């Protein structure tokens, strides 16, 4: 009797540990998916600004709205990278392990984007299209700065 219940307990424990692990992993897989969705929203908002800037007479309200959106999204960026949502999450991700092993610099790079998008939002709010154009370049470089260091290049 005692032997059997010990066996059942052991089995239950093993099961729960496995299930717990699987749950944690699926949570991390979800974190990767959420992150990708956030980055796509960010890309879409930035592209909306750039597309507007290409026009002869950019719609200032659209530029301002998307710049504000961009600033809001960038503020959230550091929260998209919970520990465990790297390559070990078990789903395809372009996030390099360096995001976590080199965290202070990664966060500094994210901060740079937050600073540049905040400036973009300010200039767009003021309706200064010329300044917005120059600042959009700075935002793009902040994107690139982080991608070059913490993102696996495509088609490699």
């Amino acid at each position, binding site marked *: 009797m005692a032997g059997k219940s010990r066996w059942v307990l052991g089995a239950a424990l093993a099961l729960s540990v496995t299930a717990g692990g699987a749950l944690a992993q699926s949570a991390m897989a979800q974190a990767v998916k959420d992150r990708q969705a956030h980055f*796509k929203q960010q*890309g*879409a908002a*930035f*592209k909306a600004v*750039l*597309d507007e800037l*290409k*026009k*002869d007479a950019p719609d200032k309200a659209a530029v301002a709205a998307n710049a504000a959106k961009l600033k809001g999204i960038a503020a959230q960026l550091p929260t998209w990278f919970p520990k465990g949502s790297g390559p070990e999450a078990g789903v395809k991700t372009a996030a390099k392990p360096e995001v976590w092993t080199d965290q202070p610099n990664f966060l500094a790079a994210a901060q740079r984007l937050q600073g540049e998008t905040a400036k973009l939002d300010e200039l767009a709010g003021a309706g200064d299209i010329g300044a917005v154009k120059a600042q*959009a*370049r700075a*935002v*793009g*470089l902040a*994107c*690139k700065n982080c*991608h070059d260091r913490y*993102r696996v290049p*495509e*088609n490699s």
Partner: protein
Amino acid sequence: MSTASASGVRARLWDAPTRLVHWALVALVLFAWWSAETDRMAWHRWSGYAVVGLLVFRLIWGFAGSGSARFASFVRGPAATLAYVRTLPDRTKADMPGHNPLGAWAVLALLAVLIAQSVTGLYAVDVDAIEAGPLSDRVSFDTGRLFAKWHHWSFWALEALVALHLAAIAFYLVYKRANLVRAMVTGRQDFGRDPDLSFAPPWRAMLAAIFAAAIAWLVSTGFRL
């Protein structure tokens, strides 16, 4: 115009526009590859627009150009292609002016992939969104990213076709003792008898070139006049 020799005649085969387009495409594809690899995207876009112009010209020339450049003169059906394939093991040179039926399909495939390469590039959006093709404002960020992916895939197809093209040239040179590169440089080739090809007048090439350049320029502006 031809010069007779003991084994036959050396006669004009490829006109200047066809050769110029061919070698310009070689140079521009290499340049576009290099500029993309080294992140010189402004140069990459400009080389793409030039390729668009060359492709437009080559397509016009395929219908209104000199005889050896016209699709109707060299594109053949499956039966003729198969018949030609059966003669491949023969070590004799094919005594036909210009593209053989099998090479004709390679020409069409190369043109199709170059068109795909150009069109996907026009709509492509880089991961940072800051680098993008001139027509990318017509599509969403996600779609633009998809075009960028296809742009990479079609480049793989292009690399494969170029490798096949070079292998075929080596095969003809070594196995069949036919120097196809020289003909594409000088425009002349040795024939058993004068093939008596027709050549388009220069003014027609000029008109086609102006039209092609205009299209390339329009594309580069994203059709925003």
